[in-house]
């Protein structure tokens, strides 16, 4: 059964990308992409149910593997892909109507979008940590042309910076993986499975702590670059701001979590091998640094897509901070925050995309009175901004509250206080700008109108699920989260 499931999850997006590369009719490109995404999402639900029942799944030769952690992440990533695929339909139709996108660019988008989904699923299902590396580098390569889709000066510059910085980071991570392999060869008799997660995790206690410490530094810098942890975050505002809206949304809701997933796997491994507070301290430092470093950039921001990119850096910091606290409650908070953040990022990026299409500008002071000109998108954007800043009654409030209580309970008083301070300061910045954009006086500038009804319904569903997550976590999801926490502890 597992082999069927793995094949569907990997082959469907791959087949869809090949099809989109050969197809030219817009309608078929759209249909193929959203159907492929829907199948992937459906299979991810199946995968999550299967890992709840069997704890782990493994393909016959052990190349692919899934447990509750990969099941949860697959659900988040494929769900985000489905939402973005559906949004892309309206988005590119509108651009095509305004003759701002060529049919070649549309085809390239749909083909690469599916490649992007495939590479992310590949990382999540890989058992071999070498494959995990290959998949992560492939996500960078697959998204490069998506970032530079419009072929303008600024997007080329952003994409170049993105691919160069992330490739260097990921090269350093490869050295870390080599050191892990080196250490594992002393313990595992067969070199064929010495890089397999399922093998490594069972012998983690016997690995050489000194080597794994060194390996972890390289891995943290490497995958941290990809996740956008400060101070390796510099590519992120550029890439997120210049990429087409659906691409930035999927990067913020999907790709970020791929890098975090890799960090989590090595966190578990190295924490077990080294013990003590080595891993935790590094995570808390990088987490707080990422939250703190964005404050000046948020408070003095002119571009609202860059504003959202800094929000993404902040939330990666929050999740990494929570992993650093390293108690079961903190792990639960981190994973819950990962889910909430993905939904919230989709909502704010996609609604901001509607505002951008209406105003044809991503400069904050040129967008004023959005509530009058594009009432639905503007309201959803404002709701999203309140959710993103951790305002009750939305889901992110609950997860941030969980993380902070776990921090205080574990005795990290100063660190948790800094966390509260950063979150509060950022709340001020984000709401000030969002408020100006949505509620400011209507200026004379023209608007090209509201998005279509399907898009609005899609975004409303996101907003409602954030609200639901703030009041009550659905039982199957809660169970999956608890099982994923067990992966950290077993």
């Amino acid at each position, binding site marked *: 059964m597992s082999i069927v499931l793995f094949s569907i999850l990997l082959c469907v997006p791959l087949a869809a990308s090949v099809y989109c590369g050969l197809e030219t009719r817009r309608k078929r490109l759209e249909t193929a992409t959203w159907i492929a995404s829907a199948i992937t999402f459906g299979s991810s639900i199946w995968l999550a149910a299967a890992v709840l029942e069997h704890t782990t799944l493994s393909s016959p030769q052990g190349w692919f593997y899934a447990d509750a952690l990969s099941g949860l992440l697959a659900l988040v990533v494929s769900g985000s892909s489905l939402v973005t695929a559906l949004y892309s339909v309206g988005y590119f139709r509108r651009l095509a109507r305004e003759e701002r996108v060529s049919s070649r660019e549309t085809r390239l988008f749909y083909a690469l979008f599916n490649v992007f989904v495939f590479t992310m699923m590949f990382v999540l299902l890989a058992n071999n940590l*070498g*494959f995990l590396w*290959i998949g992560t580098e492939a996500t960078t390569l697959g998204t490069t*042309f998506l970032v530079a889709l419009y072929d303008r000066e600024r997007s080329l*510059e952003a994409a170049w910076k993105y691919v160069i910085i992330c490739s260097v980071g990921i090269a350093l991570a490869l*050295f870390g993986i*080599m050191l892990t392999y080196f250490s594992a060869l002393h313990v595992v008799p067969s070199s064929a499975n010495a890089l397999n997660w399922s093998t490594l995790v069972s012998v983690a206690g016997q690995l050489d702590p000194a080597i794994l410490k060194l390996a972890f530094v390289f891995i943290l810098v490497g995958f941290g670059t990809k996740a956008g942890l400060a101070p390796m975050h510099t590519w992120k505002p550029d890439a997120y701001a210049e990429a087409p809206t659906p691409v930035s949304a999927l990067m913020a809701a999907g790709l970020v979590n791929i890098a975090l997933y890799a960090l989590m796997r090595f966190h578990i491994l190295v924490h077990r091998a080294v013990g003590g507070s080595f891993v935790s301290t590094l995570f808390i430092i990088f987490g707080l640094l990422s939250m703190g470093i964005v404050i000046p950039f948020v408070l003095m921001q002119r571009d609202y897509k860059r504003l959202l990119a800094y929000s993404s850096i902040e939330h990666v910091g929050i999740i990494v901070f929570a992993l650093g606290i390293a108690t079961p409650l903190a792990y639960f908070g981190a994973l819950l925050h990962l889910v909430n953040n993905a939904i919230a990022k989709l909502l704010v990026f996609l609604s901001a995309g509607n505002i951008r299409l209406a105003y044809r500008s991503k400069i904050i002071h040129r967008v004023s009175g959005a509530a009058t000109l594009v009432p639905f998108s503007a309201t959803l954007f404002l709701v999203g901004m309140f959710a993103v800043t951790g305002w009750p009654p939305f889901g992110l409030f609950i997860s941030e509250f969980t993380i902070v209580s776990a921090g205080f309970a574990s005795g990290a008083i100063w660190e948790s206080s800094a966390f509260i301070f950063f979150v509060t300061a950022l709340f001020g910045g984000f709401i000030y700008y969002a408020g100006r954009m949505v509620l400011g006086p209507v200026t004379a500038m023209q608007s090209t109108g509201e998005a279509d009804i399907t898009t609005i319904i899609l975004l409303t569903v996101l907003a409602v699920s954030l609200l639901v997550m703030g009041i009550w976590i659905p039982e199957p999801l809660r169970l999956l989260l608890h099982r994923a926490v067990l992966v950290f502890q077993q």
Partner: protein
Amino acid sequence: MGPGAQTISQYIDILAAMILVTAFLIVSSRSLTFYVRLFSLQSFFLAAVALLVAIGYGEMHILTAAILTIVVKVVAIPIVLNKITDAIKVRKEIDFTINVTVSLLICGGLVIVADSVAQPILSAQTGDTLGVSRVLPASIAMIMIGLFIMVARKKAVTQLIGLMTMENGLFLSGLAITYGMPMIVEVGIFFDILMATLILGVFMFRINRTFESISMDTLRSLRH
């Protein structure tokens, strides 16, 4: 280690030294054509090390990696890079942010740092010392020099060569500590590298068309 293995190990040491020399020559080079040729030469020496390890120590899975190195890094990537630099008529001189003398001094320092990083790893090799582990300091130095080239040289092509030098250093350190990664992983890594070169190559064309120069100095409109 038998006398035969000893000889092979000496050859490997000499080749590792040559690889490091090519890295230093790249740092001191002023011409783009020379950059690409040196990179090709460096990859050739690297392939020779891999061949020696494969045949000399009977680690036949490295043979694939050695052949891939020759096909991809010695032949394919240099051809692609030469095509690009010819087609976009880039000025063949290198722009420096740090001049040659200071660069060489910094890289000399990096070699010393690399040695101190390598020592704890080497001392963890209890008993079963590999014949190639002595090249580990050189390989870590290559990773660092590659990073340095990316920071200190401004052209898009030189950034790519810096990245590839890092990759070569990584490959060599993999050989040094574990006789390389499992074959299937190695093949995947080569595929990624080739894709990266092609993608960055296409980018150079596009950047050239839009900016009419591929110096990274022109790429400065994005800040904050």
